[in-house]
């Protein structure tokens, strides 16, 4: 690290036209300071990562792969299997995507394709504001408004198709995977919509107009041009939304019901990786319990970084291809 900075500092003095090199000029110090800031951050993040993995290690060592595949989590029996929480995280994220992606794409299309700019701008800002509401406020609203609102809907589904499909069946009322998923969906709609909006707006004007010139409708423009060209970009939007959904903590903790087992139905109470950490970490007096919870954090971290990394990579690829297309 230090070597890089030094060499970079030396090459920076090329901007001095006389080529005279003072041993320690302002630029070298300047780059050293910037480099030190970067190095400090890198070191701190590295330390945090190492510390966390080290703190979780006893749990990993003791349970091995069972830590991830074990379906029983019982602090009183010192058995720690993370499967119920991994299941909860994946289930709520999947339902949330199912709900949020179509809505977000339609919102983005409305804003970029159909509304005149003067109306489109405020609509876009309003949807963005969904992301500005703090998680804990969504949780409060979810607990007191959404849970009661969803109760008759849940009962209806359980009494209808739920009779034949246990996944949609009882137990019904109250906090559940589904309520948590709805809240998460609300929180990721603005993310997916914002990225998709950029993607759709980047569609080359020429190709849009070609379709219109051939007598196509705006829907034809969307179907033949906007969506095919924006495919990778939309993919990135969905991945970034998924990354956010996986990590969502406080609102989920408040409405998911906090039950450390794999619920048979989407109406069962459950737990996600993030919410079990939030709920149990302060009460974890047993060392192994705390270690196992940090272990869940490491699992969560890995999932979030992989999904988000894929999202960022796909997004960059889209941006590059969009630039080339222009």
């Amino acid at each position, binding site marked *: 690290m230090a070597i890089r900075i030094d060499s970079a500092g030396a090459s920076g003095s090329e901007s001095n036209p006389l080529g005279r090199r003072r041993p320690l000029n302002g630029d070298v110090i300047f780059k050293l300071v910037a480099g030190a*800031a970067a190095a400090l951050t890198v070191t701190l993040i590295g330390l945090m990562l190492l*510390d966390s993995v080290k703190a979780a290690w006893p749990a990993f060592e003791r349970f091995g792969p069972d830590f991830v595949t074990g379906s029983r989590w019982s602090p009183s029996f010192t058995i720690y299997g993370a499967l119920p929480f991994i299941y909860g995280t994946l289930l709520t994220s999947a339902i949330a995507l199912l709900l949020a992606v179509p809505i977000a794409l339609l919102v983005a299309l409305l*804003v970029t394709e*159909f509304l005149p700019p003067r109306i489109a701008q405020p609509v876009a800002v309003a949807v963005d504001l969904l992301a500005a509401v703090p998680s804990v406020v969504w949780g409060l609203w979810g607990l007191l408004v959404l849970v009661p609102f969803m109760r008759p809907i849940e009962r209806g589904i359980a009494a209808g198709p739920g009779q034949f499909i246990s996944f949609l069946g009882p137990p019904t009322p109250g906090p559940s995977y589904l309520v948590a998923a709805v809240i998460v969906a609300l929180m990721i709609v603005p993310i997916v919509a914002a990225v998709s909006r950029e993607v759709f707006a980047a569609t080359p004007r020429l190709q849009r107009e070609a379709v219109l010139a051939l007598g196509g409708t705006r829907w034809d423009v969307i179907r033949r041009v906007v969506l095919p060209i924006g495919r990778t970009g939309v993919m990135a939007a969905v991945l970034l939304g998924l990354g956010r959904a996986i990590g969502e903590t406080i609102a989920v903790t408040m409405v998911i019901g906090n039950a450390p087992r794999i619920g048979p139905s989407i109406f069962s109470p459950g737990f996600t990786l993030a919410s079990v950490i939030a709920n149990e970490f302060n009460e974890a007096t047993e060392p192994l319990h705390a270690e196992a919870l940090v272990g869940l954090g490491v699992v969560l971290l890995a999932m979030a970084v992989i999904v988000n990394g894929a999202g960022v990579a796909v997004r960059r690829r889209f941006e590059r291809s969009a630039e080339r297309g222009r």
Partner: protein
Amino acid sequence: MAAEYPALLKPTSRGRRLKADLVVLLAVVATVVALIPLASVFLYIVGQGAGLLRPEFFLEDPPGDLSAAGGGIRNAIAGTLEMTALATLMAVPLGILIAIFDTEVGGRAATGTRFLIDVLAALPSIVVGIFVYSLVVVAQGHFSGFAGSVALAVIMLPLIVVSTEEMLRLIPKPITEGARALGLRRWRTYLSVFIPTALSGIFTGLLLAVSRAVGETAPLLFTALGNNFFTAELSEPMQGMPLLIYRNALNSAYPAARDRAMGAALVLILIVLAFNLLGRWLVARRKPGRGSGR
């Protein structure tokens, strides 16, 4: 934003026109569906909380017992302000320096830090809490407002780096060349030309980062922990507004706790919105054809 098309040709078949209209209708319905919860959240919190915002709500501490009525949220407001301010003091200089490092030094080292900043931005906030717990709280031996500030700074840092980098990239080439022609050294160029030029953009990024940090609960759970009493001492456990809302909401069966949560949520939402909308307004104001100048 929607481009305006000249009406070149009328779509031929009625069926296709109908389909296009149907899509518009669907898109409108979806947008309304997305905005109903937003309206509901605001109306609900304002409706429930507005009557509670008397002066003593801001000037008194809550009673030690969640179920007891009366008192205010002074400790939480003070804690949030103090922790957010300290987090800003940590994240802003560091963030700007990292952004300068990335644009100025470049190369593989910059790719590395950029990757790390991406990772940081992807961290679930609860994981940030665990990280800072294992680095700061364990080392200090106790929960503290300082640890809470560090956690909030970790949340803010990637947002500041990304917005600053974007601003530095947008600096027009003539300005760079002008500085070079004057024989300014790079550090002088940054200090007297680039940073002042990019300042409003950096400030906007800061506002959005603060609006995010102020509302975060999860990073504070195992760092600042919360405190029923007022403290300005950063070495002690400290209350934050999100923490207070969280704990009171979980006990919302008690009317007093529920009211406290509602009032605090309203105050928090107003703070977040103020920062957020101000930041957006600044972005929008400088966009149309004004270059990247101030």
